[in-house]
């Protein structure tokens, strides 16, 4: 019997991580992620978790301690957000190129400047090409469940990559919801012990880690890294299915399709905004509009073919981004979706939306407007503009 508790997203992340029994944890406080570190420290002092914790002096050292520990063979966990993630960038990139299955929770937070501390995935999306896997969650139950799936995915022999489990700061990190906690023994069975074979610093079996490497060989490592990302794309669906069998909950794997089968118009979302978006999809359906929704769960690897397949029969779609892609004048997920559509030879009218920057609410009205805008876009394949949903003039 699993337990049910009301908890915020940070607690869900902490419990999910703790249930996977990390050996070594290192993290540095930053709003809105700080409580994760505190919860884990409490679990350890209360004897609920047997882990060694390093109270590091910065995020750079947080990532460095866990990469060092992972290189020696430990299962590791860390958490951060925003500026903290930026400070980590150097060892962050390296954790992936050394193929260390570091699991890291990120309570997504907008990037400075101006000074801000509210939610938004600009932080992790800006480092999406650093070789990590990145999953984005919609609610607190998904955070806990994804954390458990994340260790499995990261440590799989065909993947061996670090992973970010991302969730919107405050909207999820600090908001309490009903969450089911699985049984420890079931989690133990689902996440086997981590035994590294591909890289290890051990006097009993000496090897150099990171010798100076020529470009030809480097390219080969990059290629293998890319293939591991593609392996993860297959595996996330399989793990999701297995998780459903064992724990009774599924998130669709790489993407979630909501009322897409017969949809003429589809809204693409990611993260916590998805809940209200589904509500407005239902309302549009009730009003006779054939609307559906695709929730992007995994951004790296990007499930381009799955998304294109979900969108291929619609008459128009829109992508709502809580982030910007400087230089494109749109959001980041929009550009990724467009690339996927092009690769699948699909030219379908669409609208890029930007909403909720700096932690602003993305409201039902925003989605109603977005849905109507997408419907009106039908037939306008060569008309391109970005709609800013939180501006009175919509910024069209």
């Amino acid at each position, binding site marked *: 019997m699993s337990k049910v508790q009301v908890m915020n997203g940070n607690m869900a992340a902490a419990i999910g991580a703790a249930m996977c029994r990390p*050996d*070594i944890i*290192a993290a540095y406080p930053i709003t809105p992620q700080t409580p994760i570190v505190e919860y884990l420290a409490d679990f350890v002092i209360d004897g609920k978790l047997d882990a*060694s914790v*390093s*109270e*590091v*002096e*910065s995020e*750079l*050292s947080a990532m*460095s*301690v*866990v*990469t*060092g*520990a*992972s*290189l*020696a*063979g*430990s299962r*590791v966990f860390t958490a951060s957000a925003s500026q903290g993630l930026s400070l980590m960038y*150097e*060892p962050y990139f*390296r954790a992936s190129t050394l193929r260390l299955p570091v699991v890291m929770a990120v309570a997504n937070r907008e990037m400075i400047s101006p000074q801000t501390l509210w939610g938004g995935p600009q932080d992790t999306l800006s480092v999406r090409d650093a070789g990590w896997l990145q999953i984005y969650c919609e609610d607190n139950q998904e955070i806990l469940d994804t954390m458990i799936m994340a260790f499995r995915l990261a440590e799989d022999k065909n993947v061996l990559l670090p992973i970010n489990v991302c969730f919107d700061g405050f909207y999820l990190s600090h908001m309490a919801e009903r969450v089911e906690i699985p049984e420890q023994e079931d989690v133990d069975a689902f996440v086997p012990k981590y035994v590294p074979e591909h890289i290890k*610093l*051990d*006097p009993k079996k*000496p*090897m*150099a*880690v*990171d*010798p*100076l*490497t*020529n470009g030809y*060989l480097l390219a080969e490592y990059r290629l293998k890294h890319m293939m591991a990302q593609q392996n993860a794309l297959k595996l996330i669906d399989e793990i999701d299915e297995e998780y459903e069998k064992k724990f009774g909950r599924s998130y669709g794997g790489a993407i979630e399709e909501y009322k897409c089968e017969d949809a003429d118009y589809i809204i693409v979302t990611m993260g916590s905004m998805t809940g209200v978006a589904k509500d407005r999809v239902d309302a549009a359906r009730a009003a006779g509009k054939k609307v559906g929704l695709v929730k992007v769960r995994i951004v790296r690897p990007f499930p381009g073919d799955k998304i294109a397949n979900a969108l291929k029969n619609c008459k128009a779609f829109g992508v709502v981004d809580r982030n910007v892609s400087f230089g494109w004048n749109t959001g980041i997920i929009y550009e990724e979706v467009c690339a996927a559509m092009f690769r699948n030879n699909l030219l379908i009218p669409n609208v890029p939306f930007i909403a909720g920057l700096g932690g602003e609410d993305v409201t039902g009205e925003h989605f109603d407007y977005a849905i109507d805008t997408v419907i009106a876009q039908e037939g306008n394949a060569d008309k391109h503009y970005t709609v800013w949903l939180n501006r009175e003039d919509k910024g069209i």
Partner: protein
Amino acid sequence: MNQRETIELLARSEDQISPGISACVGCNVELTLRTCMQVMGPNTIFAIPPGCMGGVGVVGWDKQSGAKIPVFFPLLDNPASMLAGIKMHYDRIGEDVNVVAFAGDGASVDCGFQALSGAAERGDKIIYICYDNEGYMNTGYQRSGSTTKGAWTSTTPVSKDGRGGKKQNKKDMPMIMAMHDLPYMATMSPAFIPDMVTKLEKAKAVKSGLVYLHVYNPCVTGWGFKSDESIELCRLSVETNYAPLFEVENGKFTLNRSLDNPKPLADFIKRFKKFRHLGDEEIAALQELCDSKAERLKNLASL
């Protein structure tokens, strides 16, 4: 450990570094590295961050290693915290492994200082050896926080009429690290190998926190002197009190060599091309600083 015992130990223990690494001819850092790792022995994992020893191939090339023991290439700014993670792992599984950094002054007193200071404060059980050649030698000698005042470097050039050079004093890293209340801090010199070996043995025996060892290594190529003078100039740095040999064990300062009757600092300074433009006044100022630091050290050792 006396000289006979030291030679005995070195003759008996295996060199852990590849016999052919491309350190400059006469490089006393190469000697320091070989000596340190020989004493550390096979039960060791060590880190070589970017810098001379990384550049000369100690981490290896492609699929080959530059050392017989596990070696890795941390980032310039994180050797101490990466090592801390490794040590935490071995502590957890109950294996006693020497986890050692061999880092230049750039990686230690500048870029990696935060990680080092943090690890020192937390008491991470690593041995951190800093080879201080007063600058970023591997990239062609740019000034670091450890460069002596007045020195020519490629980023503190000197004009034809003798103006320029570094404007600030050298960061006093051994003293800064000593003030972290470490279980053990010591300075070493490749001219005093028995003293170095004794200190390395002590470092290995420490189980209660971070050990910091600071080695002063005049650089053949960057500072401008002949390769065969390499050890002689290391010796002179100690004999002039410019790089005194001392150790601090749990707060107790001990001088390993008397600071009385030092040779004039000018004897040392004038041997290097990088100080050639300095006038008597500037050398006198360096002498004054050297004297006051020696005096302070004597006082600390008398406590």
